[in-house]
């Protein structure tokens, strides 16, 4: 058994032990949680609400990414823009996602704009900061080399900036996504009538702890697969040249 599987089994066993010891409806056993889990997967509600949530996160994240890449590059290249943007980024970083969720519910109501903007606002500052730092760390010696050999703008972008920024882009994406999916759940709890957060709120209203756990577990697993599976896979591809050192 692999260490990861071992962790899952031990965690489930510990939970079950606690449930037996506490013996309360507020701490359902592993069997109850598993029952809920299978239920929401089989009746299709998980796929449906997860789909909506993921769409909202994706749109908001895409918006944040475009804005943050532009802002981060501008800040890294221009002293005035840096000094102008820095307070905004630092302020943005310290504002809790909960505040964005509340404000966006008030301002944008139940439309698609609400969750998308909330996700964008909460993830953009971290993304911009990571990308800005990435731009600053691009080796000026290589830019000089590209200059004397008269690399075209396209070559410079594709062969120099993009690979040099790849680590920051991935770090930013991971950070932005993790902030985004935490905020989306809040927005959906407060102001939406669909999505994983909405379902969590329903379960909460019915005091259905097993359902809360089932939704959370499934959602966390999907997000983890996205973050570690997809992103890390891409990152490994982009960083293949680095491996050459180790071999």
């Amino acid at each position: 058994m692999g260490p990861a599987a071992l962790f899952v089994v031990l965690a489930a066993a510990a939970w079950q032990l606690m449930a037996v010891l506490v013996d309360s409806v507020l701490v359902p056993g592993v069997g109850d949680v598993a029952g809920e889990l299978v239920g929401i997967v089989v009746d299709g509600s998980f796929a449906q609400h997860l789909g909506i949530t993921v769409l909202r996160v994706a749109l908001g994240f895409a918006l944040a990414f475009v804005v943050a890449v532009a802002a981060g590059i501008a800040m890294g290249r221009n002293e005035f823009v840096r000094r102008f943007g820095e307070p905004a980024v630092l302020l943005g970083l310290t504002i809790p996602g909960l505040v964005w969720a509340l404000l966006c519910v008030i301002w944008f109501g139940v439309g698609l704009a609400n969750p998308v903007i909330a996700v964008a606002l909460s993830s953009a500052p971290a993304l911009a900061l990571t990308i800005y730092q990435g731009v600053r760390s691009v080796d000026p010696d290589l830019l000089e080399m590209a200059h004397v050999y008269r690399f075209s703008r396209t070559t410079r972008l594709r062969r120099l900036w993009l690979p040099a920024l790849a680590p920051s882009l991935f770090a930013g994406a991971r950070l932005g996504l993790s902030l985004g999916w935490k905020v989306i759940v809040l927005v959906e709890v407060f102001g939406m009538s669909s999505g994983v957060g909405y379902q969590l709120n329903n379960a909460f209203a019915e005091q259905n702890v097993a359902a809360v756990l089932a939704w959370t577990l499934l959602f966390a697993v999907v997000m983890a697969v996205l973050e570690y599976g997809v992103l890390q896979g891409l990152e490994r591809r982009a960083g293949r040249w680095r491996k050459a050192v180790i071999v």
Partner: protein
Amino acid sequence: MSELATTTAIRLDGVGKTFVDARTGAPQTVLDGFSLTVDEGELVALVGASGTGKTTLLHIVAGLSTPDRGTVEIGRPRLGVVFQQPRLLDWLPVRQNVVLALEAAGLDPDAADTVLEAVGLTRYAGSYPSVLSGGQRQRVAVARAFAVEPDLVLLDEPFSALDELTARKLRLLLQELWMSRPRTGLLVTHNPLEAALLADRVLVLAGSPARVAAEHRIERERPRSAEDPYLFDLHTRIVAALA
């Protein structure tokens, strides 16, 4: 930039450069009233103690650094530059590093294979630079500079990281480059014999700000041999000027 006389490729006139130490704020004048003229097709070697401003001079000629005072006249020649560090794109294989420069110059990418063979790196063409030794990386930088059919060649200690046998091969390669067509060049080296062997003129730089302490013209057909007693004699005079 004004019109250059047909035979003058580079003209520096009264060039000054002062660096300010970012930490202490202390200014350091590396060049002051420095003048230099290099003819079309002439290879000038710069020798001189560490820190005299040779790299600074090269960067000014390459257009990477603007002098604080004085004028610089260079056309817009195609550059082949070997920096003091190789400056390779670590995420691209060796061949691709050369190919990018070739493509930017509008030349056939396959020329990369010829030049990589010439510097003895054919079997590393597909490798990432990170698996190469320091000297091998430097050879990639030399290959890149020679591949682009440069009009102006700027070499900052290009062979210093190489074993003597490899260095000899590359010095011969450089001579062949000049024999195929004379190009304008600046060669920074700490090796006086190398300067005498390769250059049409050797400038010994000294002092701070840097001035030309000695100048030697070398009129010898290429290919030249390091065994040539004339060049050896010259090298001893360069060493004397360095002291």
